[in-house]
């Protein structure tokens, strides 16, 4: 994976396959403390302790279509490469939380990539799942959720192709606004 956004897209598919009805995604950029944290929390079927231990093993997968499962191992690798780590917590019936940390300024930390587009795609192509997104930059935060989007859309289906583009713009502008607050501060 070349971007953190692609990892988010990838790991969220696990939550979708685990039958989650609500997925909390958060990206916390904190240059001040040199830390970037990604948390993906779902209310899917969860894993028992044994499965949870095996989840970061590339030769383990719950799928029948192929013999490897690289999503979590790749994220784990990229996190530790950038001075961070991957933590998994899960219990059957309650859901799974995946947390990946990175040193914000580490040269091997992947760029965040197209987060607005990724969240927009996730929201519009999984209308049955409430996706809650939160973005933090130092002390500022912004977020939105599928249910808010649906409310704003009224009877227009979320799957309408135009929604993706609008959402992407909305998310993009708000995230860069968060980052701008920091820039102004720095100039001062």
């Amino acid at each position, binding site marked *: *994976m070349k971007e953190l956004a*692609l990892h988010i*897209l*990838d790991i969220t*598919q696990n939550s979708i*396959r685990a039958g989650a009805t609500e997925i909390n995604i958060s990206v916390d950029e904190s240059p001040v403390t040199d830390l970037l944290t990604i948390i993906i929390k779902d209310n899917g079927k969860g894993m028992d302790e044994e499965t949870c231990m095996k989840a970061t093993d590339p030769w383990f997968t719950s*799928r029948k*279509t*192929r013999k490897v*499962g*690289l*999503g979590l191992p*790749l994220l784990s690798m990229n996190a530790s490469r950038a001075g961070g780590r991957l933590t998994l917590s899960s219990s059957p019936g309650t859901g799974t939380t995946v947390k990946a940390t990175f040193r914000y300024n580490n040269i091997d930390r992947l760029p965040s990539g*197209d987060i607005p*587009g*990724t969240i927009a*795609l996730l929201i519009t*192509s*999984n209308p049955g799942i409430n996706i809650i997104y939160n973005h933090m930059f130092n002390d500022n935060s912004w977020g*939105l959720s599928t249910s*808010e*989007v649906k*409310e*704003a*859309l*009224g*009877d*227009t*289906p979320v*799957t*309408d*192709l*135009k*929604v*993706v*583009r*609008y*959402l992407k*713009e*909305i998310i993009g*502008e*708000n995230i860069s*606004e968060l980052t701008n607050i920091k820039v102004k501060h720095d100039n001062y």
Partner: protein
Amino acid sequence: MGKLKSLADLKKIQEEARVKLDLRVKGDSPEGLVQIKVAMATCGIASGAKTVMDFLVDELDKRGIGAVVTQTGCMGYCYAEPTIEVQLPGQEPVVFGFVDLKRADEIIEKYIKSGELVEGIIPVNYEKIDE
């Protein structure tokens, strides 16, 4: 600085979409839409499925084709990623492999618009390769 875009802006699409939906209901049912599924597991994403999906969403909208584009998991054709499944209204779904932007464009222009098959089709019986 201008006003930030917010969810309230989505109301605009609501208007646009309503007009479109009216036309559609009169013309044909929602089943009259082209259904596209983009395989988006680790293998697909790593090979560029997101770029392909962005392209499809943008282009289908620009070219005025009524379609629903969704994500799906790994179909088992990891060697041929990115793969997409296209189902034209009332037809059997067809799976295309090695879909880059050039082929995605071809699929829209030839297959979706006029039903003409293009290269890269994964035959249905490949499903059983492991058995």
